[in-house]
């Protein structure tokens, strides 16, 4: 269990890296993802850092990559996924990559610019073509009219006066369709109705060369008289962004022009296609490498960003960085140092130096895909303090179990099991979907929690004997009917003395209760007691968990002054209640008889555990009882209860004053002995760490010897010289600083803690009753759904019944899934979470740590992908 019971041991290491090898070393470390670097240059602003230029170059490359990606996506070119992640590029390759990116970006830019030019040219020509084609019609009409006029005018022809002949001037152009009504109105106004406007739809959608949007346009011809109107119309046209085209007035000229334009269009189209092809080719070739490049650039940026955390040695011959390393991974880090140095070709090795620190290290629990979900549940409450007992280990079972106590139903459990199995069996497929959506992600991350919850629900459901609110009679009900029965109009209550076979149903609730009218009375009493039993045991378990913590942090006195009074308080009151519950279960039955012995244990004499409990707390005598019954379950019960109460009350002042008094005594002693007050724990911790260090050094020596590598040996030599130096950045945590803490603080702290604990024993025990409430609610809800919905379908006779049951099943199944599995499941989940966070973990868990955030390319790339 090692790392999961407690977080891993961490040590602060100093890395001494040669500048030329630094890039490679960090790259290796990033691949392994084992160290968390500390920023040694926090006080510098971003521009003063050493590798700011490199980071900026990477930013620039990222911008170019984004631009290229956008262009690639615009052309709907598929970007293939990379199977193998490329390593961070060699710094020398970066220049090539940079040049390549620059060239590609410039190419693409040029393509788009020329494409825009060509396209706008193309658009103009197309519009002109349409103008010529559409206006043909208008002119034809006009010409006909004019010809008629000409015929009449043959007699008095006066070719010198064109106006007189009724010849009108005109302006032709193209305007966006949505602007036509306004345009028309405006023309009407400026001319007081003296402009004749003809319009026709272009018929095909055109493409905007800049944005690529589709546009619908309309061809118009405005006929008018007089030069003044013409200039006005032109102004209006430009105001409406209408493009005007020259249109010759004679048919011949128009035809010629049309032919010429068609020819030019054809040419242009060919050129356009060629450019498009070329662009496509470039983009396709870029797309292949795009993913690789962006990964490489992100890695590179991450490396330089990390290098900015490093200090430069005074001689400028080496970079010094500090990092947290899990003790188990030190050899990996060392290997990375050696690999990095050798791949850079530098002859001077880089090495690491473990330094002592009083700062508390980050918390690191090594998880796998199974335990991660549970660890996340705990971390959501608060990351464990360094080396504190990790509740996640127990949560793996207790969480699904408490959930299942509330959710117990075989049917709903099976539905859930199906979902969980699907998510687990198709794990790889689902994990590879990139955009799953938040809710799917949450469920998927908790797939193993769901699996265990469903398995436990199957078990508890089997014990509750509930399958969609129906029961199974697997082992044979232990209730029987006797010969020659009679039954009245109102039914019958079976007396256990005559109808009960003597031993309980082997596993779970007897199926007879399923159709009993007083089912709830029975289940109420059973489930309430069950939840108290489970709750008290769960809390006792939680208090027991403080022991490993006290032992590990060497607070042995707390076992005596904290753990024992806490345990006594909890057990003498609440565990006593559990004991009483069991005594009642064992002692009383519905036995019939006349002798006093028999009457005393009969059902009419069964006492209420709750009344006993209340009287015990209030120090009251038990009230009068029925004839033949005894006041107490056994003779010395009142005495025992008095003793328990006294013990419980005594344990409170022990809890309250024990620790502060001890502190005062030891505090005095220390002052007398030393004058100055060193903290015992600190000294000890340092010793422990020095032991660990020598162990590691030996280990690495061995490793390098077996490798027989020259560079390795150098490292080992360096390692041999490792000396203890206090870290330059030792920060004292004021919270743990007992030297400063006065007696008063300890006292106040302890008083709060004691009050909290004492009150919490009551409130937390009551809180576990939610197990009873929710499981009862779940069972009742599914019962109601069955009788109110599904039963309606079952009672319809004949062929109609077939259809009815078909439809009603759908309704029932929908509500079963949506309400009973999903909503009730979520609510049971939340209540379980609360029971763990508040009722269980508050007994021993501080949760004041900070998480270990290793420098890992994998994590960085995943985060980038999510954005």
């Amino acid at each position, binding site marked *: 269990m090692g790392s999961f019971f407690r977080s891993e041991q961490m040590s602060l290491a100093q890395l001494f890296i040669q500048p030329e090898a630094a890039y490679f070393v960090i790259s290796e470390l990033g691949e392994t993802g084992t160290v968390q670097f500390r920023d040694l240059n926090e006080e510098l602003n971003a521009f003063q850092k050493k590798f700011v230029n490199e980071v900026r170059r990477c930013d620039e490359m990222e911008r170019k990559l984004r631009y290229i990606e956008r262009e690639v996506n615009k052309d709907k070119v598929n970007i293939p996924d990379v199977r193998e992640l490329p390593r961070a590029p060699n710094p020398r390759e970066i220049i090539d990559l940079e040049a390549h990116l620059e060239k590609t970006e410039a190419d693409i830019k040029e393509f788009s610019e020329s494409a825009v030019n060509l396209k706008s040219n193309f658009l103009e020509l197309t519009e002109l073509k349409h103008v010529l084609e559409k206006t043909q019609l208008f002119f034809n009409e006009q010409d006909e009219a004019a010809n008629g006029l000409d015929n009449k005018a043959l007699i008095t022809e006066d070719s010198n006066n064109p106006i007189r002949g009724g010849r009108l001037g005109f302006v032709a152009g193209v305007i966006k369709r949505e602007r036509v009504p306004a345009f028309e109105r405006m023309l009407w106004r400026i001319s007081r109705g003296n402009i004749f406007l003809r319009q026709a739809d272009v018929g095909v959608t055109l493409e905007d060369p800049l944005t690529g949007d589709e546009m619908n346009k309309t061809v118009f011809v405005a006929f008018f008289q007089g030069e003044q109107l013409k200039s006005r119309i032109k102004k209006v046209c430009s105001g409406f962004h209408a493009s005007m085209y020259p249109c010759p007035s004679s048919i011949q000229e128009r035809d010629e022009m049309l032919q010429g334009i068609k020819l030019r269009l054809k040419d242009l189209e060919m050129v356009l296609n060629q450019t498009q092809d070329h662009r496509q080719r470039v983009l396709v070739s870029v797309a292949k490498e795009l993913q690789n490049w962006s990964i490489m650039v992100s890695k590179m940026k991450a490396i330089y960003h990390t290098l900015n955390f490093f200090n430069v040695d005074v001689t400028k011959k080496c970079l010094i960085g500090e990092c947290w390393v899990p003790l188990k991974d030190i050899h990996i880090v060392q290997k990375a140092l050696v690999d990095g140095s050798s791949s850079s070709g530098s002859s001077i090795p880089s090495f690491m130096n473990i330094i002592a620190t009083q700062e508390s290290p980050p918390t690191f629990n090594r998880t796998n895909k199974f335990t991660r979900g549970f660890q996340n549940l705990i971390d959501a409450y608060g990351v464990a303090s360094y080396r504190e007992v990790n509740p996640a280990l127990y949560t793996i079972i207790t969480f699904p179990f408490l959930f299942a106590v509330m959710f117990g139903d075989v049917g709903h459990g099976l539905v859930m099991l199906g979902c969980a199995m699907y998510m687990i069996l198709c794990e790889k497929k689902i994990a590879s979907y990139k955009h799953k959506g938040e809710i799917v992600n949450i469920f998927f991350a908790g797939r193993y929690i769901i699996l265990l919850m469903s398995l436990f629900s199957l078990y508890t459901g089997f014990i509750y004997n509930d399958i969609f609110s129906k029961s199974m009679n697997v082992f044979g009900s232990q209730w029987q009917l006797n010969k020659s029965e009679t039954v009245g109009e109102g039914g019958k209550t*079976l007396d256990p003395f005559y109808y009960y076979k003597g031993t309980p149903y082997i596993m779970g609730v007897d199926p007879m209760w399923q159709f009993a009218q007083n089912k709830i009375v029975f289940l109420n009493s059973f489930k309430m007691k069950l939840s108290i039993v489970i709750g008290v045991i769960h809390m006792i378990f939680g208090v027991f968990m403080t022991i490993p913590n006290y032992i590990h942090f060497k607070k042995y006195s707390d076992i005596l002054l904290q753990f024992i009074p806490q345990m006594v308080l909890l057990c003498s009151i609440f565990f006593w209640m559990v004991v009483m519950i069991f005594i009642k279960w064992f002692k009383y039955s519905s036995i019939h008889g006349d002798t006093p012995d028999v009457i005393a244990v009969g059902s009419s004499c069964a006492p209420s555990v709750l009344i006993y409990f209340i009287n015990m707390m209030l120090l009251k005598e038990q009230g009068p009882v029925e004839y033949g019954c005894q006041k107490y379950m056994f003779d010395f019960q009142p005495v025992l209860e008095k003793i328990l109460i006294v013990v419980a009350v005594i344990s409170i002042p022990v809890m309250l004053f024990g620790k502060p008094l001890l502190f005062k005594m030891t505090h005095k002693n220390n002052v007398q002995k030393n004058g100055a007050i060193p903290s015992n724990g600190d000294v000890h911790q340092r010793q422990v760490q020095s032991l660990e260090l020598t162990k590691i050094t030996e280990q690495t020596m061995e490793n390098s010897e077996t490798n027989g590598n020259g560079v390795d040996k150098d490292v080992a030599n360096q390692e041999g010289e490792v000396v203890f130096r206090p870290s330059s950045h030792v920060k004292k945590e004021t919270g743990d600083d007992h030297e400063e803490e006065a007696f008063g603080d300890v006292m106040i702290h302890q008083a709060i803690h004691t009050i909290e604990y004492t009150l919490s024993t009551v409130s937390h025990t009551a809180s576990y009753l939610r197990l009873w409430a929710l499981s009862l609610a779940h069972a009742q809800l599914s019962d109601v759904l069955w009788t109110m919905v599904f039963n309606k379908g079952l009672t319809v006779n004949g062929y109609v019944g077939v259809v009815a049951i078909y439809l009603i099943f759908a309704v029932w199944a929908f509500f079963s899934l949506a309400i009973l599995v999903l909503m009730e499941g979520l609510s049971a989940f939340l209540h379980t979470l609360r029971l763990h966070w508040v009722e269980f973990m508050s007994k021993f868990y501080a949760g004041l740590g900070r998480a270990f955030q290793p420098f890992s390319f994998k994590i960085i790339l995943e985060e980038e992908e999510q954005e």
Partner: protein
Amino acid sequence: MGAAAIPFIIFTVFWGAVGGVAPFFVPKGPNRGIIQVLLALTGVCCWLFWLCCYVAQMNPLIGPQLERDTFLILAKQWGKPIQNLTDIP
């Protein structure tokens, strides 16, 4: 009234085996400790749950209250039909 020995032994032995014996046979590996704890806790939880249910029904203080129809159907199903009633459909 009381417990039958056989079911009690069977379940105690079964969950005892899961929680107390199986942990010793977990194959060696980095997760051995975790699996051991899981097995032990599973054994305890499941046994406790079964035990409470069993003990709670050992000495019933009340019996199931049945409707007349339910009662009659039960009697018929269990082979002891009630003859002297005429108004049963």
